[in-house]
Protein backbone atom coordinates (compact mmCIF):
# COMPACT_ATOMS: atom_id res chain seq x y z
CA UNK A 1 0.00 0.00 0.00
CA UNK A 2 1.14 3.48 -0.82
CA UNK A 3 1.21 6.20 1.79
CA UNK A 4 1.14 9.78 0.61
CA UNK A 5 3.21 12.24 2.55
CA UNK A 6 2.03 15.71 1.78
CA UNK A 7 4.73 18.32 2.17
CA UNK A 8 3.21 21.19 0.24
CA UNK A 9 -0.24 22.74 -0.13
CA UNK A 10 0.20 21.97 -3.81
CA UNK A 11 -0.29 18.28 -2.89
CA UNK A 12 -3.91 18.98 -2.02
CA UNK A 13 -4.52 20.89 -5.22
CA UNK A 14 -2.89 18.87 -7.99
CA UNK A 15 -5.00 16.62 -10.20
CA UNK A 16 -2.74 13.57 -9.99
CA UNK A 17 -1.97 12.81 -6.34
CA UNK A 18 0.99 10.60 -7.24
CA UNK A 19 2.96 9.29 -10.20
CA UNK A 20 0.88 6.10 -10.42
CA UNK A 21 -2.04 8.15 -11.68
CA UNK A 22 0.06 9.71 -14.44
CA UNK A 23 1.22 6.29 -15.58
CA UNK A 24 -2.23 4.69 -15.63
CA UNK A 25 -3.97 7.63 -17.25
CA UNK A 26 -1.10 7.91 -19.72
CA UNK A 27 -1.55 4.27 -20.71
CA UNK A 28 -5.31 4.78 -21.02
CA UNK A 29 -4.81 7.84 -23.23
CA UNK A 30 -2.28 5.99 -25.40
CA UNK A 31 -4.72 3.09 -25.85
CA UNK A 32 -7.50 5.51 -26.77
CA UNK A 33 -5.22 7.21 -29.29
CA UNK A 34 -4.32 3.99 -31.08
CA UNK A 35 -7.85 2.57 -30.79
CA UNK A 36 -8.78 3.39 -34.43
CA UNK A 37 -6.05 0.99 -35.56
CA UNK A 38 -7.18 -1.80 -33.25
CA UNK A 39 -10.97 -1.78 -33.18
CA UNK A 40 -13.55 -2.58 -35.82
CA UNK A 41 -15.46 0.28 -37.38
CA UNK A 42 -18.58 -0.74 -35.43
CA UNK A 43 -16.77 -0.56 -32.10
CA UNK A 44 -15.17 2.74 -33.10
CA UNK A 45 -18.62 4.12 -33.76
CA UNK A 46 -19.76 2.90 -30.34
CA UNK A 47 -16.66 4.52 -28.81
CA UNK A 48 -17.69 7.87 -30.31
CA UNK A 49 -21.09 7.46 -28.66
CA UNK A 50 -19.33 6.62 -25.39
CA UNK A 51 -17.47 9.93 -25.67
CA UNK A 52 -20.66 11.89 -26.38
CA UNK A 53 -22.62 10.21 -23.59
CA UNK A 54 -19.71 10.72 -21.22
CA UNK A 55 -19.65 14.45 -22.03
CA UNK A 56 -23.35 14.68 -21.21
CA UNK A 57 -22.70 12.51 -18.15
CA UNK A 58 -20.08 14.98 -16.89
CA UNK A 59 -22.52 17.84 -17.53
CA UNK A 60 -25.24 16.05 -15.59
CA UNK A 61 -22.80 15.24 -12.79
CA UNK A 62 -22.05 18.94 -12.35
CA UNK A 63 -25.76 19.67 -11.97
CA UNK A 64 -27.09 16.55 -10.27
CA UNK A 65 -24.08 14.94 -8.69
CA UNK A 66 -22.34 18.02 -7.36
CA UNK A 67 -25.01 20.71 -7.08
CA UNK A 68 -27.77 18.27 -6.15
CA UNK A 69 -30.29 19.56 -8.70
CA UNK A 70 -31.92 16.64 -10.49
CA UNK A 71 -32.71 17.10 -14.17
CA UNK A 72 -34.67 15.01 -16.62
CA UNK A 73 -34.36 17.66 -19.29
CA UNK A 74 -30.90 17.07 -20.65
CA UNK A 75 -32.16 15.55 -23.89
CA UNK A 76 -33.65 18.99 -24.59
CA UNK A 77 -30.30 20.71 -24.02
CA UNK A 78 -28.70 18.15 -26.34
CA UNK A 79 -31.41 18.90 -28.91
CA UNK A 80 -30.86 22.64 -28.66
CA UNK A 81 -27.14 22.15 -29.28
CA UNK A 82 -27.78 19.78 -32.19
CA UNK A 83 -30.41 21.97 -33.87
CA UNK A 84 -28.34 25.13 -33.44
CA UNK A 85 -25.50 23.41 -35.26
CA UNK A 86 -27.75 22.10 -38.02
CA UNK A 87 -29.44 25.48 -38.46
CA UNK A 88 -26.22 27.51 -38.54
CA UNK A 89 -24.77 25.00 -41.00
CA UNK A 90 -27.41 26.01 -43.53
CA UNK A 91 -25.82 29.50 -43.48
CA UNK A 92 -22.36 28.00 -44.05
CA UNK A 93 -21.09 29.07 -40.64
CA UNK A 94 -17.74 27.36 -39.99
CA UNK A 95 -17.59 24.56 -37.42
CA UNK A 96 -15.61 26.28 -34.62
CA UNK A 97 -18.09 29.15 -34.60
CA UNK A 98 -21.32 27.16 -34.58
CA UNK A 99 -19.79 24.78 -32.05
CA UNK A 100 -19.20 27.69 -29.65
CA UNK A 101 -22.49 29.40 -30.47
CA UNK A 102 -24.41 26.15 -29.82
CA UNK A 103 -22.73 25.81 -26.42
CA UNK A 104 -23.30 29.46 -25.51
CA UNK A 105 -26.95 29.42 -26.59
CA UNK A 106 -27.66 26.19 -24.72
CA UNK A 107 -25.92 27.61 -21.67
CA UNK A 108 -28.09 30.71 -21.86
CA UNK A 109 -31.26 28.63 -22.09
CA UNK A 110 -29.96 26.47 -19.24
CA UNK A 111 -29.60 29.59 -17.10
CA UNK A 112 -33.15 30.58 -18.00
CA UNK A 113 -34.38 27.15 -16.90
CA UNK A 114 -32.33 27.60 -13.74
CA UNK A 115 -34.29 30.67 -12.60
CA UNK A 116 -37.70 29.04 -12.16
CA UNK A 117 -35.90 26.00 -10.78
CA UNK A 118 -34.54 28.07 -7.89
CA UNK A 119 -37.65 27.59 -5.82
CA UNK A 120 -38.03 23.90 -6.62
CA UNK A 121 -36.32 20.93 -5.06
CA UNK A 122 -36.37 17.18 -5.45
CA UNK A 123 -39.25 15.65 -7.34
CA UNK A 124 -40.77 19.04 -8.20
CA UNK A 125 -37.59 20.08 -9.95
CA UNK A 126 -37.63 16.79 -11.88
CA UNK A 127 -41.18 17.52 -13.03
CA UNK A 128 -40.22 21.07 -14.03
CA UNK A 129 -37.29 19.83 -16.10
CA UNK A 130 -39.46 17.16 -17.74
CA UNK A 131 -41.94 19.86 -18.72
CA UNK A 132 -39.10 21.93 -20.15
CA UNK A 133 -37.99 18.92 -22.21
CA UNK A 134 -41.54 18.35 -23.49
CA UNK A 135 -41.86 22.03 -24.44
CA UNK A 136 -38.60 21.90 -26.37
CA UNK A 137 -39.66 18.70 -28.11
CA UNK A 138 -42.93 20.33 -29.12
CA UNK A 139 -41.18 23.48 -30.37
CA UNK A 140 -38.81 21.38 -32.46
CA UNK A 141 -41.78 19.61 -34.03
CA UNK A 142 -43.80 22.81 -34.69
CA UNK A 143 -41.25 25.50 -35.59
CA UNK A 144 -40.98 24.23 -39.12
CA UNK A 145 -39.30 27.27 -40.68
CA UNK A 146 -36.22 26.59 -38.55
CA UNK A 147 -36.35 22.93 -37.57
CA UNK A 148 -38.28 21.43 -40.51
CA UNK A 149 -40.61 19.89 -37.96
CA UNK A 150 -41.00 16.14 -37.87
CA UNK A 151 -39.24 15.77 -41.22
CA UNK A 152 -36.04 16.40 -39.35
CA UNK A 153 -32.85 18.06 -40.52
CA UNK A 154 -29.94 16.72 -42.42
CA UNK A 155 -26.54 17.57 -40.92
CA UNK A 156 -23.77 18.14 -43.42
CA UNK A 157 -20.38 16.50 -43.01
CA UNK A 158 -18.23 18.32 -40.51
CA UNK A 159 -15.56 20.45 -42.10
CA UNK A 160 -12.70 21.50 -39.87
CA UNK A 161 -10.37 24.17 -41.32
CA UNK A 162 -11.46 23.25 -44.82
CA UNK A 163 -10.86 19.52 -44.35
CA UNK A 164 -13.89 17.24 -44.42
CA UNK A 165 -14.19 15.07 -41.32
CA UNK A 166 -16.67 12.24 -42.02
CA UNK A 167 -18.60 10.97 -39.04
CA UNK A 168 -16.92 7.55 -39.07
CA UNK A 169 -13.38 8.81 -39.58
CA UNK A 170 -10.72 8.53 -36.86
CA UNK A 171 -10.42 12.33 -36.90
CA UNK A 172 -14.03 12.68 -35.79
CA UNK A 173 -13.33 10.22 -32.98
CA UNK A 174 -10.27 12.23 -31.93
CA UNK A 175 -12.39 15.39 -31.96
CA UNK A 176 -14.97 13.81 -29.64
CA UNK A 177 -12.22 12.46 -27.40
CA UNK A 178 -10.59 15.89 -27.23
CA UNK A 179 -13.88 17.55 -26.27
CA UNK A 180 -14.41 14.88 -23.60
CA UNK A 181 -10.92 15.30 -22.16
CA UNK A 182 -11.22 19.10 -22.15
CA UNK A 183 -14.63 18.85 -20.48
CA UNK A 184 -13.28 16.57 -17.79
CA UNK A 185 -10.21 18.72 -17.14
CA UNK A 186 -12.31 21.90 -17.04
CA UNK A 187 -14.77 20.30 -14.64
CA UNK A 188 -11.99 19.03 -12.39
CA UNK A 189 -10.55 22.55 -12.34
CA UNK A 190 -13.93 23.92 -11.41
CA UNK A 191 -14.39 21.38 -8.64
CA UNK A 192 -11.12 22.32 -6.97
CA UNK A 193 -11.98 26.03 -7.06
CA UNK A 194 -14.43 28.10 -4.98
CA UNK A 195 -17.25 27.58 -7.49
CA UNK A 196 -17.08 23.79 -7.31
CA UNK A 197 -16.98 23.85 -3.54
CA UNK A 198 -19.98 26.18 -3.51
CA UNK A 199 -21.85 23.65 -5.69
CA UNK A 200 -21.11 20.84 -3.24
CA UNK A 201 -22.08 23.09 -0.34
CA UNK A 202 -25.46 23.78 -1.94
CA UNK A 203 -25.99 20.07 -2.48
CA UNK A 204 -25.33 19.17 1.15
CA UNK A 205 -26.87 22.09 3.03
CA UNK A 206 -28.27 25.21 1.42
CA UNK A 207 -28.67 26.90 4.79
CA UNK A 208 -25.05 26.40 5.73
CA UNK A 209 -23.91 27.44 2.25
CA UNK A 210 -25.88 30.65 2.55
CA UNK A 211 -24.52 31.44 5.99
CA UNK A 212 -20.98 30.95 4.64
CA UNK A 213 -21.62 33.66 2.06
CA UNK A 214 -22.58 31.54 -0.94
CA UNK A 215 -25.17 33.23 -3.12
CA UNK A 216 -27.22 30.06 -3.54
CA UNK A 217 -29.47 31.36 -6.32
CA UNK A 218 -26.54 32.63 -8.39
CA UNK A 219 -24.59 29.38 -8.07
CA UNK A 220 -27.62 27.23 -8.93
CA UNK A 221 -28.11 29.25 -12.09
CA UNK A 222 -24.38 28.97 -12.83
CA UNK A 223 -24.58 25.22 -12.38
CA UNK A 224 -27.54 24.97 -14.75
CA UNK A 225 -25.79 27.15 -17.31
CA UNK A 226 -22.50 25.24 -17.22
CA UNK A 227 -24.24 21.89 -17.37
CA UNK A 228 -26.45 22.99 -20.27
CA UNK A 229 -23.54 24.52 -22.18
CA UNK A 230 -21.50 21.31 -21.98
CA UNK A 231 -24.55 19.34 -23.10
CA UNK A 232 -24.92 21.77 -25.99
CA UNK A 233 -21.36 21.02 -27.12
CA UNK A 234 -22.18 17.31 -26.94
CA UNK A 235 -25.31 18.03 -29.00
CA UNK A 236 -23.23 19.39 -31.87
CA UNK A 237 -21.11 16.22 -31.92
CA UNK A 238 -24.25 14.10 -31.57
CA UNK A 239 -25.82 15.80 -34.61
CA UNK A 240 -22.71 15.21 -36.69
CA UNK A 241 -22.46 11.59 -35.60
CA UNK A 242 -26.08 10.86 -36.53
CA UNK A 243 -25.96 13.10 -39.67
CA UNK A 244 -29.73 13.43 -39.36
CA UNK A 245 -31.74 14.82 -36.48
CA UNK A 246 -35.47 14.87 -35.78
CA UNK A 247 -37.53 15.71 -32.68
CA UNK A 248 -38.29 12.08 -31.79
CA UNK A 249 -34.59 11.45 -31.12
CA UNK A 250 -34.63 13.78 -28.12
CA UNK A 251 -37.36 12.25 -26.02
CA UNK A 252 -37.73 11.61 -22.32
CA UNK A 253 -36.17 8.18 -22.91
CA UNK A 254 -32.87 9.88 -23.81
CA UNK A 255 -32.99 12.05 -20.68
CA UNK A 256 -33.56 8.91 -18.62
CA UNK A 257 -30.59 7.28 -20.33
CA UNK A 258 -28.43 10.21 -19.21
CA UNK A 259 -29.66 9.82 -15.63
CA UNK A 260 -28.84 6.12 -15.87
CA UNK A 261 -25.33 7.03 -17.04
CA UNK A 262 -24.56 8.84 -13.79
CA UNK A 263 -26.61 6.61 -11.50
CA UNK A 264 -24.88 3.48 -12.70
CA UNK A 265 -21.48 5.05 -13.10
CA UNK A 266 -21.54 6.69 -9.69
CA UNK A 267 -22.69 10.20 -8.83
CA UNK A 268 -19.78 11.25 -6.66
CA UNK A 269 -16.94 11.23 -9.16
CA UNK A 270 -16.33 12.09 -12.80
CA UNK A 271 -15.17 8.52 -13.36
CA UNK A 272 -18.83 7.62 -12.97
CA UNK A 273 -19.82 9.55 -16.10
CA UNK A 274 -17.34 7.64 -18.26
CA UNK A 275 -18.09 4.21 -16.78
CA UNK A 276 -21.82 4.84 -17.00
CA UNK A 277 -21.48 5.97 -20.62
CA UNK A 278 -19.60 2.78 -21.50
CA UNK A 279 -22.33 0.77 -19.79
CA UNK A 280 -25.26 2.49 -21.49
CA UNK A 281 -23.71 2.48 -24.96
CA UNK A 282 -22.58 -1.12 -24.75
CA UNK A 283 -25.78 -2.51 -23.24
CA UNK A 284 -27.67 -1.72 -26.43
CA UNK A 285 -25.71 -4.06 -28.72
CA UNK A 286 -25.73 -6.58 -25.89
CA UNK A 287 -29.52 -6.49 -25.63
CA UNK A 288 -29.81 -6.73 -29.42
CA UNK A 289 -27.53 -9.73 -29.32
CA UNK A 290 -29.70 -11.33 -26.62
CA UNK A 291 -32.83 -10.57 -28.61
CA UNK A 292 -31.44 -12.17 -31.74
CA UNK A 293 -29.67 -15.17 -30.24
CA UNK A 294 -31.39 -15.95 -26.97
CA UNK A 295 -34.54 -17.57 -28.48
CA UNK A 296 -32.35 -19.98 -30.48
CA UNK A 297 -30.21 -20.78 -27.44
CA UNK A 298 -33.24 -21.45 -25.23
CA UNK A 299 -34.80 -23.63 -27.92
CA UNK A 300 -31.51 -25.52 -28.19
CA UNK A 301 -31.45 -26.10 -24.43
CA UNK A 302 -35.08 -27.24 -24.55
CA UNK A 303 -34.21 -29.65 -27.36
CA UNK A 304 -31.31 -31.18 -25.39
CA UNK A 305 -33.69 -31.74 -22.49
CA UNK A 306 -35.87 -33.82 -24.77
CA UNK A 307 -38.35 -31.40 -26.24
CA UNK A 308 -39.46 -32.38 -29.72
CA UNK A 309 -38.59 -30.15 -32.72
CA UNK A 310 -42.16 -28.90 -32.83
CA UNK A 311 -42.17 -27.82 -29.18
CA UNK A 312 -38.66 -26.33 -29.52
CA UNK A 313 -39.78 -24.22 -32.48
CA UNK A 314 -42.81 -23.15 -30.49
CA UNK A 315 -40.62 -22.11 -27.53
CA UNK A 316 -38.29 -20.25 -29.86
CA UNK A 317 -41.07 -18.20 -31.41
CA UNK A 318 -42.62 -17.46 -27.99
CA UNK A 319 -39.29 -16.24 -26.58
CA UNK A 320 -38.61 -14.24 -29.75
CA UNK A 321 -42.05 -12.63 -29.47
CA UNK A 322 -41.35 -11.75 -25.83
CA UNK A 323 -37.91 -10.37 -26.66
CA UNK A 324 -39.31 -8.03 -29.30
CA UNK A 325 -42.07 -6.67 -27.08
CA UNK A 326 -42.38 -2.90 -27.07
CA UNK A 327 -40.96 -1.27 -23.98
CA UNK A 328 -38.92 -4.28 -22.91
CA UNK A 329 -35.76 -2.19 -23.16
CA UNK A 330 -37.27 0.46 -20.88
CA UNK A 331 -38.25 -2.23 -18.39
CA UNK A 332 -34.71 -3.64 -18.38
CA UNK A 333 -33.30 -0.14 -17.82
CA UNK A 334 -35.75 0.32 -14.97
CA UNK A 335 -34.75 -2.95 -13.34
CA UNK A 336 -31.07 -2.08 -13.69
CA UNK A 337 -31.60 1.30 -11.99
CA UNK A 338 -33.56 -0.27 -9.14
CA UNK A 339 -30.89 -2.92 -8.61
CA UNK A 340 -28.11 -0.32 -8.60
CA UNK A 341 -29.91 2.02 -6.23
CA UNK A 342 -30.63 -0.85 -3.87
CA UNK A 343 -27.35 -2.71 -3.94
CA UNK A 344 -24.68 -0.38 -5.29
CA UNK A 345 -25.67 3.24 -4.65
CA UNK A 346 -22.12 4.34 -5.33
CA UNK A 347 -22.31 2.92 -8.84
CA UNK A 348 -19.70 1.16 -10.93
CA UNK A 349 -16.97 3.51 -9.76
CA UNK A 350 -17.88 2.81 -6.14
CA UNK A 351 -17.61 -0.91 -6.87
CA UNK A 352 -14.22 -0.33 -8.51
CA UNK A 353 -12.98 1.56 -5.43
CA UNK A 354 -14.08 -1.34 -3.23
CA UNK A 355 -12.28 -3.86 -5.40
CA UNK A 356 -9.17 -1.68 -5.36
CA UNK A 357 -9.28 -1.36 -1.58
CA UNK A 358 -9.79 -5.10 -1.24
CA UNK A 359 -6.47 -5.76 -2.99
CA UNK A 360 -4.69 -2.90 -1.21
CA UNK A 361 -5.68 -4.20 2.20
CA UNK A 362 -5.57 -7.90 1.41
CA UNK A 363 -6.06 -9.93 3.57
CA UNK A 364 -7.41 -7.37 6.05
CA UNK A 365 -10.45 -6.14 4.14
CA UNK A 366 -13.64 -6.11 6.17
CA UNK A 367 -17.10 -6.10 4.65
CA UNK A 368 -18.15 -3.34 6.99
CA UNK A 369 -15.52 -0.93 5.64
CA UNK A 370 -18.01 0.78 3.35
CA UNK A 371 -21.03 0.51 5.61
CA UNK A 372 -22.18 4.02 6.38
CA UNK A 373 -22.99 4.75 9.97
CA UNK A 374 -26.46 6.16 10.29
CA UNK A 375 -26.44 7.15 13.93
CA UNK A 376 -26.39 10.88 13.47
CA UNK A 377 -29.83 11.48 12.11
CA UNK A 378 -30.63 15.09 11.56
CA UNK A 379 -33.76 16.33 13.28
CA UNK A 380 -35.23 19.64 12.23
CA UNK A 381 -33.24 20.91 9.33
CA UNK A 382 -33.50 24.45 8.11
CA UNK A 383 -34.28 24.55 4.45
Amino acid at each position, binding site marked *: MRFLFKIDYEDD*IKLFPHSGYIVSYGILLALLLIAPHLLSSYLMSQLVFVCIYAIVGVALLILTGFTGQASLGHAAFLAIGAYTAAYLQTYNVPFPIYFLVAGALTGLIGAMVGFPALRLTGIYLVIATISFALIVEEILARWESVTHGNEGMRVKTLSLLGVAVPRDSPTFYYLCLAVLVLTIVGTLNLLRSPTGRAFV*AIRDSETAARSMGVNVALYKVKSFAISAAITGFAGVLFAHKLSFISPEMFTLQLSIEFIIVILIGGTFSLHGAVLGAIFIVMIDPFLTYLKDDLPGIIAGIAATFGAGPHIAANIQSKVAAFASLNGLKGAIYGIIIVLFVLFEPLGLYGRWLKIKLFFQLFPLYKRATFKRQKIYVKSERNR
Partner: protein
Amino acid sequence: MSYFRAENLSLHFGGLKAVDAVSFAVERGEILSIIGPNGAGKSSIFNLISRIYRPTSGRIFFEDQDITEQPPYDIARLGIARTFQNIELFENASVLSNLLVGRHRHSTTQLWQELLFLPSVRASEKVHRRRVEQVIEFLDLEPYRDKLISGLPYGVRKVIELARALCSEPKLILLDEPSSGLNVEETDDMSFWIRDLKNELGVTVLMVEHDMSLVNRVSDRVIALNYGRVLAMGSPAEVQQHPDVVAAYLGA
Protein backbone atom coordinates in the same frame (compact mmCIF):
# COMPACT_ATOMS: atom_id res chain seq x y z
CA MET B 1 -22.40 53.35 19.38
CA SER B 2 -22.19 49.67 20.01
CA TYR B 3 -20.56 47.17 17.72
CA PHE B 4 -23.61 45.04 17.07
CA ARG B 5 -27.12 46.06 17.99
CA ALA B 6 -30.62 44.63 17.70
CA GLU B 7 -33.47 47.08 18.16
CA ASN B 8 -37.01 45.98 18.98
CA LEU B 9 -36.47 42.77 17.05
CA SER B 10 -39.69 40.76 16.62
CA LEU B 11 -40.55 37.54 14.85
CA HIS B 12 -44.17 36.42 14.81
CA PHE B 13 -45.48 33.20 13.35
CA GLY B 14 -49.17 34.06 13.12
CA GLY B 15 -50.20 34.65 16.71
CA LEU B 16 -47.07 33.11 18.18
CA LYS B 17 -44.49 35.65 19.19
CA ALA B 18 -41.23 33.72 18.92
CA VAL B 19 -39.21 36.88 19.44
CA ASP B 20 -40.98 39.85 20.94
CA ALA B 21 -39.40 43.31 20.81
CA VAL B 22 -35.94 42.18 21.88
CA SER B 23 -33.23 44.80 22.07
CA PHE B 24 -29.63 44.19 23.00
CA ALA B 25 -26.17 45.34 22.09
CA VAL B 26 -22.87 43.51 21.78
CA GLU B 27 -19.64 45.41 22.46
CA ARG B 28 -16.54 44.78 20.37
CA GLY B 29 -14.47 41.94 21.78
CA GLU B 30 -16.91 40.63 24.36
CA ILE B 31 -18.53 37.25 24.83
CA LEU B 32 -22.27 37.62 25.24
CA SER B 33 -24.37 34.56 26.06
CA ILE B 34 -28.08 34.19 25.51
CA ILE B 35 -29.74 31.74 27.88
CA GLY B 36 -33.32 30.70 28.37
CA PRO B 37 -35.61 27.69 28.56
CA ASN B 38 -36.57 25.70 25.46
CA GLY B 39 -38.60 27.71 22.99
CA ALA B 40 -37.54 31.01 24.47
CA GLY B 41 -36.54 32.30 21.04
CA LYS B 42 -32.77 32.03 21.34
CA SER B 43 -32.09 30.24 18.09
CA SER B 44 -34.74 32.35 16.37
CA ILE B 45 -32.68 35.44 17.17
CA PHE B 46 -29.69 33.80 15.47
CA ASN B 47 -31.81 32.88 12.49
CA LEU B 48 -32.99 36.48 12.30
CA ILE B 49 -29.44 37.76 12.34
CA SER B 50 -28.29 35.36 9.64
CA ARG B 51 -31.46 36.18 7.66
CA ILE B 52 -32.88 32.66 7.56
CA TYR B 53 -36.02 34.35 8.90
CA ARG B 54 -37.17 37.83 8.03
CA PRO B 55 -37.95 39.88 11.13
CA THR B 56 -41.59 40.95 11.54
CA SER B 57 -40.31 44.25 12.83
CA GLY B 58 -37.20 45.77 14.31
CA ARG B 59 -33.75 46.51 12.99
CA ILE B 60 -30.29 44.97 13.20
CA PHE B 61 -27.12 47.03 13.05
CA PHE B 62 -23.56 45.82 12.62
CA GLU B 63 -20.69 48.30 12.75
CA ASP B 64 -23.32 51.06 12.50
CA GLN B 65 -24.63 49.67 9.25
CA ASP B 66 -28.25 48.59 8.99
CA ILE B 67 -28.14 44.93 7.92
CA THR B 68 -31.84 44.13 8.35
CA GLU B 69 -32.48 44.08 4.61
CA GLN B 70 -29.23 42.48 3.48
CA PRO B 71 -29.56 39.17 1.59
CA PRO B 72 -28.43 36.15 3.67
CA TYR B 73 -25.17 35.60 1.75
CA ASP B 74 -24.12 39.19 2.39
CA ILE B 75 -24.24 38.68 6.16
CA ALA B 76 -21.22 36.39 5.92
CA ARG B 77 -19.44 38.87 3.66
CA LEU B 78 -19.83 41.54 6.31
CA GLY B 79 -17.93 39.30 8.71
CA ILE B 80 -20.65 37.52 10.68
CA ALA B 81 -20.18 33.74 10.77
CA ARG B 82 -22.31 31.21 12.59
CA THR B 83 -22.59 27.60 13.68
CA PHE B 84 -25.79 25.59 13.91
CA GLN B 85 -27.50 23.80 16.73
CA ASN B 86 -28.17 20.71 14.63
CA ILE B 87 -24.89 20.47 12.80
CA GLU B 88 -25.17 21.70 9.22
CA LEU B 89 -21.96 20.45 7.66
CA PHE B 90 -21.49 19.37 4.08
CA GLU B 91 -21.90 15.65 4.80
CA ASN B 92 -20.42 14.11 1.69
CA ALA B 93 -17.39 16.33 1.42
CA SER B 94 -14.04 16.12 3.14
CA VAL B 95 -13.20 18.17 6.22
CA LEU B 96 -10.80 20.20 4.13
CA SER B 97 -13.39 21.17 1.53
CA ASN B 98 -15.88 21.99 4.28
CA LEU B 99 -13.37 24.39 5.76
CA LEU B 100 -12.51 25.82 2.35
CA VAL B 101 -16.18 26.68 1.82
CA GLY B 102 -15.73 28.82 4.91
CA ARG B 103 -13.25 30.81 2.82
CA HIS B 104 -15.90 31.51 0.22
CA ARG B 105 -16.37 35.14 1.19
CA HIS B 106 -12.73 35.81 0.41
CA SER B 107 -12.71 34.22 -3.02
CA THR B 108 -12.22 36.64 -5.86
CA THR B 109 -11.57 34.36 -8.83
CA GLN B 110 -13.85 34.37 -11.87
CA LEU B 111 -15.53 31.34 -13.37
CA TRP B 112 -13.48 31.34 -16.59
CA GLN B 113 -10.26 31.61 -14.61
CA GLU B 114 -11.31 28.63 -12.53
CA LEU B 115 -12.18 26.55 -15.61
CA LEU B 116 -8.60 27.02 -16.84
CA PHE B 117 -7.15 26.95 -13.31
CA LEU B 118 -4.93 29.90 -14.12
CA PRO B 119 -1.90 30.63 -11.94
CA SER B 120 -3.90 33.34 -10.16
CA VAL B 121 -6.46 30.72 -9.08
CA ARG B 122 -3.70 28.39 -7.96
CA ALA B 123 -2.10 31.16 -5.93
CA SER B 124 -5.34 32.15 -4.24
CA GLU B 125 -6.14 28.49 -3.53
CA LYS B 126 -2.83 28.22 -1.72
CA VAL B 127 -3.63 31.28 0.35
CA HIS B 128 -7.00 29.79 1.28
CA ARG B 129 -5.31 26.50 2.09
CA ARG B 130 -2.81 28.21 4.39
CA ARG B 131 -5.54 30.07 6.27
CA VAL B 132 -7.48 26.85 6.67
CA GLU B 133 -4.36 25.16 8.00
CA GLN B 134 -4.02 27.86 10.65
CA VAL B 135 -7.57 27.14 11.83
CA ILE B 136 -6.89 23.39 11.75
CA GLU B 137 -3.90 23.97 13.97
CA PHE B 138 -5.83 26.28 16.29
CA LEU B 139 -8.57 23.69 16.85
CA ASP B 140 -6.39 20.53 16.75
CA LEU B 141 -8.13 19.07 13.71
CA GLU B 142 -4.97 17.67 12.09
CA PRO B 143 -6.06 13.99 12.16
CA TYR B 144 -9.24 14.67 10.19
CA ARG B 145 -8.15 16.80 7.20
CA ASP B 146 -9.00 14.30 4.47
CA LYS B 147 -11.82 12.45 6.24
CA LEU B 148 -15.40 12.62 5.02
CA ILE B 149 -17.78 14.33 7.43
CA SER B 150 -20.24 11.45 7.21
CA GLY B 151 -17.75 9.18 8.97
CA LEU B 152 -16.87 11.48 11.87
CA PRO B 153 -18.18 11.39 15.44
CA TYR B 154 -20.48 14.10 16.74
CA GLY B 155 -17.95 15.85 18.94
CA VAL B 156 -15.52 16.29 16.05
CA ARG B 157 -18.27 17.58 13.79
CA LYS B 158 -19.10 20.21 16.35
CA VAL B 159 -15.50 21.44 16.30
CA ILE B 160 -15.43 21.38 12.51
CA GLU B 161 -18.48 23.64 12.44
CA LEU B 162 -16.62 26.09 14.61
CA ALA B 163 -13.59 25.73 12.37
CA ARG B 164 -15.62 26.39 9.24
CA ALA B 165 -17.01 29.56 10.78
CA LEU B 166 -13.49 30.65 11.79
CA CYS B 167 -12.14 30.05 8.29
CA SER B 168 -14.20 32.97 7.08
CA GLU B 169 -12.17 35.18 9.44
CA PRO B 170 -15.27 36.63 11.07
CA LYS B 171 -15.46 39.76 13.17
CA LEU B 172 -18.53 38.46 14.98
CA ILE B 173 -19.25 34.79 15.46
CA LEU B 174 -22.65 33.36 16.43
CA LEU B 175 -22.35 30.05 18.28
CA ASP B 176 -25.63 28.14 18.55
CA GLU B 177 -25.25 25.78 21.53
CA PRO B 178 -21.55 24.99 21.03
CA SER B 179 -21.54 22.39 23.79
CA SER B 180 -24.75 20.49 23.03
CA GLY B 181 -24.02 16.78 22.66
CA LEU B 182 -20.43 17.12 23.89
CA ASN B 183 -19.02 15.23 26.86
CA VAL B 184 -17.34 16.96 29.80
CA GLU B 185 -13.84 17.00 28.30
CA GLU B 186 -15.04 18.19 24.93
CA THR B 187 -17.01 20.94 26.65
CA ASP B 188 -13.84 21.95 28.52
CA ASP B 189 -11.94 22.16 25.22
CA MET B 190 -14.76 24.19 23.74
CA SER B 191 -14.69 26.68 26.61
CA PHE B 192 -10.93 27.19 26.17
CA TRP B 193 -11.37 27.72 22.45
CA ILE B 194 -14.17 30.23 22.95
CA ARG B 195 -11.92 32.14 25.36
CA ASP B 196 -9.09 31.96 22.82
CA LEU B 197 -11.39 33.25 20.10
CA LYS B 198 -11.75 36.40 22.07
CA ASN B 199 -8.25 36.73 23.47
CA GLU B 200 -6.10 35.52 20.57
CA LEU B 201 -8.17 36.16 17.48
CA GLY B 202 -10.08 39.19 18.74
CA VAL B 203 -13.41 37.81 17.58
CA THR B 204 -16.60 39.03 19.22
CA VAL B 205 -18.76 36.11 20.32
CA LEU B 206 -22.53 35.92 20.61
CA MET B 207 -23.51 32.54 21.97
CA VAL B 208 -26.65 30.58 22.78
CA GLU B 209 -25.95 28.03 25.47
CA HIS B 210 -27.72 25.81 27.98
CA ASP B 211 -24.72 24.56 29.91
CA MET B 212 -24.51 27.10 32.75
CA SER B 213 -21.01 26.09 33.79
CA LEU B 214 -19.76 26.89 30.29
CA VAL B 215 -21.72 30.15 30.30
CA ASN B 216 -20.21 31.12 33.65
CA ARG B 217 -16.70 30.27 32.55
CA VAL B 218 -16.61 32.21 29.30
CA SER B 219 -19.26 34.93 29.24
CA ASP B 220 -18.66 38.58 29.94
CA ARG B 221 -22.37 39.28 29.94
CA VAL B 222 -25.54 37.19 29.82
CA ILE B 223 -29.00 37.83 28.47
CA ALA B 224 -31.87 35.67 29.73
CA LEU B 225 -34.89 35.21 27.48
CA ASN B 226 -38.29 33.64 27.99
CA TYR B 227 -41.29 33.58 25.64
CA GLY B 228 -39.37 35.79 23.25
CA ARG B 229 -38.80 38.56 25.82
CA VAL B 230 -35.70 39.70 27.64
CA LEU B 231 -35.95 38.80 31.33
CA ALA B 232 -32.59 39.99 32.55
CA MET B 233 -29.25 41.25 31.31
CA GLY B 234 -25.94 41.57 33.11
CA SER B 235 -23.03 39.57 34.47
CA PRO B 236 -23.52 35.78 34.70
CA ALA B 237 -23.94 35.91 38.48
CA GLU B 238 -26.46 38.76 38.37
CA VAL B 239 -28.60 37.11 35.76
CA GLN B 240 -28.67 33.76 37.54
CA GLN B 241 -29.90 35.38 40.72
CA HIS B 242 -32.52 37.49 39.04
CA PRO B 243 -35.93 36.42 40.41
CA ASP B 244 -37.60 36.33 36.96
CA VAL B 245 -34.87 34.01 35.63
CA VAL B 246 -35.20 31.70 38.60
CA ALA B 247 -38.94 31.66 38.10
CA ALA B 248 -38.62 30.89 34.40
CA TYR B 249 -36.33 27.94 35.00
CA LEU B 250 -37.98 26.53 38.12
CA GLY B 251 -41.51 27.38 37.06
CA ALA B 252 -42.30 29.09 40.34
